[in-house]
C-alpha cells in the first residue's frame, strides 16, 4: 500500500501506478549492437538494502513515467521525479 507522491498529481495510491523496474541501469543507445552492454542492462541487477531508484508510471493518472527513490527496508519513499527531467 505504497503512497507515491506524483510530481504533478500529488500523493496517490500505488494501485494507480505501474512498476517499471530498476531505474539505476543505463539503457544502451538504440543502435548499440553490443551484446554485453545489453546483457548488463537487461539482466544484471543489484539488490540493495536501503535506498533504491525504480521506475513507476502513473498509468491511471497523468501517465508520466517517474523515478521513485524507495527504501527497500522500510518502503518509505524519499523522492519522486519525472523520468524526463532526470534524462534532460
Amino acid at each position, binding site marked *: 500500500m505504497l503512497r507515491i507522491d506524483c510530481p504533478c498529481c500529488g500523493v496517490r495510491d500505488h494501485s494507480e501506478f505501474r512498476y517499471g523496474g530498476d531505474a539505476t541501469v543505463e539503457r544502451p543507445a538504440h543502435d548499440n549492437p553490443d551484446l554485453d552492454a*545489453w546483457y548488463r542492462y537487461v539482466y544484471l541487477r543489484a539488490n540493495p538494502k536501503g535506498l533504491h531508484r525504480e521506475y513507476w508510471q502513473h498509468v491511471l493518472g497523468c501517465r508520466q513515467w517517474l523515478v521513485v527513490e524507495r527504501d527497500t527496508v522500510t518502503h518509505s519513499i524519499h523522492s519522486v521525479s519525472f523520468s524526463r527531467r532526470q534524462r534532460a
Partner: protein
Amino acid sequence: MTSTEKRLASGGYLDRSQVLKFMCDGRQYTGFKGDTLASALLASGVSLVGRSFKYHRPRGILSAGAEEPNALVTVGTGARREPNLPATMLELTSGLEAASQNNWPSLRFDVQSINSLFSPLLSSGFYYKTFMGPSRRAWMFYEHFIRKAAGLGKATMMPDPDVYDSRDDFTDVAVVGSGAAGLSAARAAAQAGARVLLIEQDFEIGGRLLSEPGGATWLHTMRTELEEMANVRIMRRTTAFGLYDGNTLALIEDADPFAGLVMNAARKTCTLLHARSIVFATGAIERPMVFPNNDRPGVMLNSAIRAYVNRYSVLPGRNVVIATADDSAYLTAFDLLAHGARVVIADARPLAEPTLLAKAKQMGAEVHLATNVTDVKGKYAVTGVVLAGKTGTIGVSCDLVGMSAGWSPVVHLTSHQGVKPVYRADIDAFVPGQLPETQFVAGAAGGSLSVSEAIAEGVSAGRAAAAVAGKVERVAEAPVLEIEETAGPTTVYKPIFGQRKAFVDFQMDVTLDDIQLAQREGYESVEHLKRYTTLGMGTDQGKTSNINALKVMAKLRGISIPEAGTTTFRPPYTPVAIGAVAGRATGHHFRPYRLTPIHDWHTANGAQMLEVGLWMRPWFFEASGRDVNTAYVNEMRLVRSTAGIMDISTLGKIDIQGPDAAAFLDRVYANGFASIKVGRARYGVMLRDDGIVFDDGTTTRLEQNRFFMTTSTAKAADVLSWLEFLLDTAWPDLRVSVSSVSDEWAGMSVAGPESGKILSAAFPDIDFSNEALPHMGLAGGTFNDSPLKIIRLSYSGERAYEIYVGASNGEAAWRHLIDVGAAYGLKPYGVEALGALRIEKGHVAGPEIDGRTTLSDLRMGRMVAKRSGYVGEALSHREAFQAANRQRLVGLKCIDPGKRLRGGALLFAPGEPLQGHGRGRMTSITYSPELDCYIGLGLLAADFKGDEVIASYPMKNEVVRARVVSPVFLDPAGERMHG
C-alpha cells in the same frame, strides 16, 4: 435466575428506557441499550457461556473487551449465522439470537468434555507429532474425532445475503482510541486546525474512562466539544485492524444497529484510511494471573469487573476474591465494596501502597499480602478459592474471582510495519519501539498507565500530529480530570510453576504444563512455542496470553524477557469479515466489464458471449449452430465460401504522431516502418529488450507524421505503457505523442470472397477495386457524423477489410453492413471461428507469442534481415537463441482417423518413450473444414528429423499421430487475400 438480580439500581452508561429482549441458547433474557451481550448475560446471572476449544471445559466471561478469549458465541441463524463473536464486544440489540459454542447436547452437559480426560493426548506438539512424525498414520485415525471435537463455532454454508462496503478515506490526523489520551489528542489536533478522524472500536466513546466512576463529566465535556467541531469526525464501532505503508490504516466498521432500516446499507464497512499522521491511543489490556483452574466461569480480569460495575451497572459477584500483583486491582475492590460486596484481596506482592491498604481495610476488605491463589473450586461457577501465603493455605468461599498481573499496552498497530516493541522493566510491559516521525503514541498504549499522563501525552501528541499536516494553531489546555489513580505494578508478576490446569491461553487451551513441555522438547523460541503449542493462534490472537507465555518461557530458559522477545504482530488486530474487504465488488461487479459499441446488437441477435480479459465478445452465433463446435465450423465455412463479419473493436488501437513518429516506429518494431508510404498498412512485430517477441499488429500510415497502430486485445495496455516508457526514459528527444484510441473506434472485419462486393455496396463512394485499394491499403471517409477508415487487411487469409468507424456510430455501421451484406450471404461470426481461421492460415497469436519465442522461432526471422537499431536486436542474436534444438513453429495435421489434436499436447518422435517434456508442444488447434481433419500449430525442435510426431496429452491419456507440415495450411501464395 431470569430476573436482573445482578443489575444495580442505577448508574452506568445504559439507556434504561430501552429494554431489549434477546435470546441465548434458546432462553429469553432482557437487557438495556448500552449493554453488550456479555454484560446483559452477567446481569441476568448467566456466568457459563461456552466450552473451550480442545478440552471443552466450561468457560465464562474473562474480559470486557476485544481481548476476550472465552465468551465466543454464534449469532444469528440461517444464512446470517456468524460464529466466534466475543460477547464482550457484541452490542446488545432487540431480537439478538446468540448461541454458545462447542457444546453438545447442551452447554451444561457436554459429551465431548470427556476430551478433558484425555488431555495429555492433546498437549502441546500434538499436531506436530501426529502430522510430521512416524506416527503420521495415527493422524488418519484421529483426524475424524479431533476435527469434530476441537474447534470453534461453525460458519453458515449459505451465500451471504448482506451488503458490505469497501472504501477509502482521508484525514490529516487519525486518532486510534477514544480514552483519555485519544480524546485529548483529537481535541488538540483539531484545535491546531487539522482534520481529525477519531476511531473507536466500541459503540461508546471513552475507553477505560467508562469504567471510572469519576470520569463521566469529563467524558461528556470532551465528547460534546469534539462533536461540535466541524473538522472532527468520529467513527464508533470501528476497529483499526492494520497499519500499512504510507500511514494507511485499515478500518472495519459495524453498522449502527439502532440507526433504523436503511435500504442497501452495508452491514460492515472496510475503510482504507490515509492519514498524514497517526496518534495511537490504543490503551492497554490487563493480563490474567496463571493459577490452577483460572479458567473457571466466574474468574475475571479485575479491569473487567470494574467495567461491568461502573459502565454496565452489573455487580457480577457479592463474595469476591481479588487476586493481584498490581495496585490497580485495589480500585476494583473499592468499587465492589462501595456496592456492598464482601472482598478478600490476595496480593502476590509482599508490600502494597500503604494508602491503598489502609483504604481497603477501612472499607472492610480482608487483605492478604504475599498470597497467591493455588486453586479454584467449582466447575460451572466459582464457589471458592484456595489461598497460599506465608502462614499456610486457607480456603475462601466466593462467587467471583478477579485477577490482575499487570498491563500489556496495545502495541499491535505500531508493530505491524515492523517496528518491534521494546520491553520496559519498570512497568513489566512491552511498549512501541521507535516510530516514524508521523506517528505518535499517547497514554497507556505507550506505557503511561495513569489518566493524568494520558491526558498530557494526548495533548502533546495531538499537537505534534497536527503539525505534521502543517496545522499549528494555538491549542488550549485539556479540561482537568480528577480521579483516583494508582501506580503501575511494583513487582514483576511471576507464575508459580508445577501447577496443573493453570491456563495461559484460554482460547487455545494452552497451560503452563504445555509451555514447559514445549521447552523440554526444544521448542524454545517464542515463534516455535507459538506454532508448537498453538498459543496465540486463536481468534483473539493471544491478546491476554502472549506476554504471560513469553515471560514463562524466558523464566524456563533463564533468559531475560527482552531476550525472549515477542512474536511478530501482523494484521488483523481483530477478525475481519472478508465480505467487507470485497465490499460491493462481488458477483456481477466482481470486476468491471468492457463492452464494444456493437455489444447490444450481439446479445439481441443470438450471440453466445465470452469473457476475454474484461471484454465481452461474441463466442459464436446461435444461428450458426446449437453448440460452439457446430457453430464455429459453419462460421469458418461462411468466411471461406461467402463472407462473414466480426466485431474487432477490442483490438488495442494507438494514435502515434509527431515529426519523429516514423523514426520511433522504426526502432519500436523489429521490421522497418520508416519506408512505409502514406495510406499503406504493414504487419509489424515488437520485441522485448531481451529479444523475445512482445506483440504483433498492423500499423497504418495515415499521414506523413501520423500512424494508426493496432495491438493484440490482450497486450493493448502493455504496449502503450511500453511506448511511453521508451519515450519518457530512453528517447525523450523524439517528438512523438502516443495515445490510446481503443475506445474511439468501433472495429469490424468483413472477410471472405464476397467482401469486396459487400463493401462496394455498403460504401458506394469508395473505390474497392484492387487497384484503388490493394491488400494493405487504406481508404477513408465518413459514416453518419463519424470518421471512417477502411484498411484492407486479412487475418483469415481471405480477401478482407477492417472497417473502423467512430464508436458512437459503431452499431449503426454494423447494422448497415449486415443489411447491405445480407444479399451476398453476409453473416456474423465469433471469436472461436476467428481463432480457427487464423490457424488454417498459420498466423501466430497469443499461444505462440507466449513470452518465450523469438522471431526466428516463429519463422519471421527474415523480416529483420539487414535491419539494425530496433528494440531487442542485440539480445535476439545471442547464442542460445540460435541453438539447433530451438523449438520453431510448425504445422501439425492429425493423421489418426477419427481422432483429434489438443492444445498443450507434448510432441515426441515415434517410438520414443513418452516421458519428460518431449521435443515440442502443440500451441493451437482447430478442426479444419477445408482439410476435414484436426490441424494445429506447434513449436517443435528445429533439429527434429522426420515428418511425423506423436502428440501426447497425458491429462486425458490421449496419444495421437500427427504429420509435420508447413504452418500455412491454406493458400500459401496468398491468392485469396490479394485476389
